[in-house]
C-alpha cells in the first residue's frame, strides 16, 4: 500500500493492516460532520474512567476497542448499564483482564442514552447503483425484521424524509409502547450526513453501520458505529 495523503483515521487503520475502523475512530469521522453521539472518551486507566463517568453522569456503557474485534457482542466486549464507581471499576478491570490478548487500544466509556426506538442507518456499495444509504428498523433483529429502505448517495432531506415514510412498520416510528415518536427531521438530517460521508470518503469506505441509532425523548443518537474499509491494493 503506497498511497499518500490518506487522511486520519483511515491512514492509521491501513497502516495497521486493518479492514475496519475502530469505533472511536469511526466516531471521529461521524462527529466531524455533526452526527451526534452520546459523550464518550477512549480511556486506558480505570481512574480516568471513573473521573470521566462522574463528569458525564451514570449510567455508562463500556466497550473494548481492539483491532482484533469487529463484532463486539461475540466477545462480550460491550457492557451496558454500568451505574456506579464501584461497578465501573469492576467491569473495567474485568474487561481489560478478559481481553488482555486482544491488543486493546483502550476502553470506550460512553454515556448510556435513555430507552428509545432502535433504528439503523447504513451505507453499502451496490454493484448496480453504487453507494446507497440505508434506513431501517435496527437492533439485534435487523436481518430478521428486514424493514429497510434505500436512497442513492448523496441524498437530500426531502428524499430522506420520504425514505423514512417508506418503512412498513410505521407504528414503530410513531411512538410504540410508551416511547415518544421519533424525530423524523433529525433522522433525515443524519441520513443525509451519512450519505455525504459515503461520497466524500468514497475512496476508503466500503460499508457503514450505525446500529442501533436510538431515537428517544432527548433526540437521535448513534450508539454503535462501524466503518468497513475498502481494500486499496
Amino acid at each position, binding site marked *: 500500500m503506497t498511497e499518500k495523503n490518506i487522511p486520519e483515521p483511515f491512514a492509521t487503520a491501513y497502516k495497521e493492516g486493518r479492514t475496519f475502523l475502530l469505533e472511536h475512530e469511526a466516531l471521529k469521522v461521524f462527529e466531524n460532520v455533526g452526527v451526534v453521539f452520546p459523550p464518550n472518551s477512549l480511556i486506558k486507566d480505570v481512574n480516568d474512567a471513573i473521573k470521566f463517568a462522574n463528569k458525564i453522569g451514570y449510567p455508562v456503557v463500556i466497550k473494548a476497542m481492539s483491532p482484533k474485534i469487529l463484532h463486539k457482542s461475540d466477545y462480550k466486549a460491550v457492557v451496558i448499564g454500568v451505574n456506579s464507581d464501584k461497578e465501573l471499576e469492576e467491569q473495567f478491570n474485568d474487561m481489560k483482564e478478559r481481553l488482555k490478548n486482544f491488543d486493546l487500544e483502550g476502553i470506550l466509556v460512553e454515556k448510556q442514552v435513555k430507552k428509545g426506538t432502535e433504528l*439503523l442507518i447504513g451505507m453499502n456499495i451496490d454493484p*448496480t*447503483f*453504487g453507494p446507497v444509504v*440505508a434506513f431501517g428498523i435496527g437492533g439485534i433483529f435487523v436481518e430478521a425484521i428486514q424493514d429497510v*429502505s434505500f*436512497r442513492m448517495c448523496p441524498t437530500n432531506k426531502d428524499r430522506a424524509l420520504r425514505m423514512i415514510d417508506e418503512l412498513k412498520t410505521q407504528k414503530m416510528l410513531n411512538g410504540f409502547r410508551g416511547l415518544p415518536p421519533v424525530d423524523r427531521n433529525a433522522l433525515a438530517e443524519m441520513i443525509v450526513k451519512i450519505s455525504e460521508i459515503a461520497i466524500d470518503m468514497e475512496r476508503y469506505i466500503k460499508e457503514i453501520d450505525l446500529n442501533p441509532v436510538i431515537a428517544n425523548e432527548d433526540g437521535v443518537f448513534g450508539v454503535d458505529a462501524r466503518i468497513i474499509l475498502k481494500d486499496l491494493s
Partner: protein
Amino acid sequence: MKFQCHVLFVTTTEHKSGSTTKMAENPLENFFNTQSIAIFGASESEDKPGFVIAENFINNFAGKTYLLNPKGGEILGQPVYKSIMEIAEPIDSAVIIVPAKYVPAAMEDCAKKGIKSVTIISGGFKEIGEEGIKLQKQIDQIAKENDIRIIGPNCIGLFYPKRGLDMVFLPERKLKRPTAGNISILSQSGAFGSAFLDIMGSLGNGNYLSKFVSYGNASDINEADILEYFGEDPETKVILAYLEGFNEGRRFIEIARKVSLKKPIIVIKANRTEAGAKAVASHTASLAANDDVTDSLFKEAGIIRAYTWDELFDCMVAFNSTLLPEGNRVLVITDGGGAGVMASDTIGTLKLELATISPEIVKKMKEDLPPYFSVSNPIDLTGSATAKEYLYSLEQTINDPQVDAITFIIIPTPPAIDVKTLMNGLKPFAKSIKKTITFCAIGGAEAVYIREEFEQMNFPFYPTPARSVYAIKKLTEYADYLRAHGQKLPLIREVPK
C-alpha cells in the same frame, strides 16, 4: 443464422458513476427520424428475418430503403445491391441482419458510406461467450473510430409505426403490429418486447405505440440513453420498460427522477435474485444484498414498478386510458354483492379508501331507485339491475367531489341487464369523462363482448375486481408522487373518435 432473442449476459456488475456530459442531441433521434436506410442481409426467402424486414420497409417506410445482399437480384420488385458502393445517394442509417462473423465487414461498409446509426439484429456476440465477446469488441472498435452509434447486437431493433420504421423480423401474420399511439417501450429482451407488441396490436383499435426499442446486448446505446430519449420525446406519453439488468443503473435512476415528473415510467425489472447473497461484514450490506435496493430506488425516482406481466399490462392500460386521480377515495358500482365485497377488500388491502358519496347525491338516488338497491359504497344494484340503473348510478356519482375514482364492475348475467344498451349508454361517457375510472366484467361470452366495447372506447378494462382496483392504486401512487413533488397531473388519455 441463429437469432437469440433472449439476452443472457448483459448485466454488468460494475456501476458507472453519475451522468457524464451528454451530447446536445440524443443519438436515438437519428435512428427514429432517419431518411434512408440500408438493410444488410435482405433475403428473398420468405421465412427469413432478412425478408420480413425488407418487406416491412418496402411496404411501410416513410423514407428511402436500400436492400443489400452479395447475391444481388430483386426482392418484391426492389433491386438488391451487391455492395453499398454501388449506391450513389447518401444513406444515414443501417440495419444489419447478416450472420455475426460478417457483421464487422458490414460495419466497415457503413463507415465508408458515412452511415452513423446502425442497428445490429444479428445474435452471436457477447451472449454466446468468448468468441462472441471478441466479435462484439471488434464492432465496438469500428463504431468508435467512425463515430457510429449502435443499437444491439442480439435484438429485434426498432419499431416506429408513425413512420413505418419496422425492424421486427416477425411477420405481420404472426405478430399483429400496434398502430400509432402514446406508449413507448424499451426492452432488453426481444421475445418479451415482441410478445407485448402483439398484445398491444390486438387490443381495441390498436392505437397504442409511439416507439419501440429492443436493445439486446447494449454494446453502445443502453437503457439509460433510451429512457432519456423517451423522456424528451413529445410523442411519448407513457414509458414501459422490461429490464433484466442495468448497464448504467445510477444514470438510469438519475434520468428517471426527471422524466417521472413529466410522464409515467412503468418498469419490470426481472431477474430479481441476481444480487444474491454474499459474505458481508455489516448489517447494512446483508440487508442490501437483495432486490429491496432496486425497489427503494425505483420509489425514489418515481418509477412505477410492475412485478409480473399482468401488472405491466394492467398499468399500461390504466395510465394510457384513464385519468390520474385527485385523491385515494374509491367508489365501487356493481350489480354483484360478492364482487363488491372483493373490490372493497382490495381497496382496504392496498390502503385506498372507500369513498363516502355526498349525502345530497345519496338522498336523490334513494328517491329515484327501487328500495332494495343499496346506495352506499359499494353501490349494489343487485340481480334486479338494468342497464338504465347502471347508467343512472354512474351519471349521479361521476361528478361527486367526494369521489376520486370509480371502479365499475359488471356481472352481465342478471336477466334484466341488456349489455348492448349498457355499452351504448356508456359511449358518451368515453367522450366526456373527467374522473379516474376502471371497468371490470366477470363472466363468459357477454363479458368478452363488454371488454371489446370498452377497449374501443379507450377505457381500461380488467377481468377481475382485484385488478381493476390495483390499477387505481398504481394511478394513485403516481399522482401522489407528482403532488409531493409539486407537479401537475398530466392528461394522457385520448378521447376515442
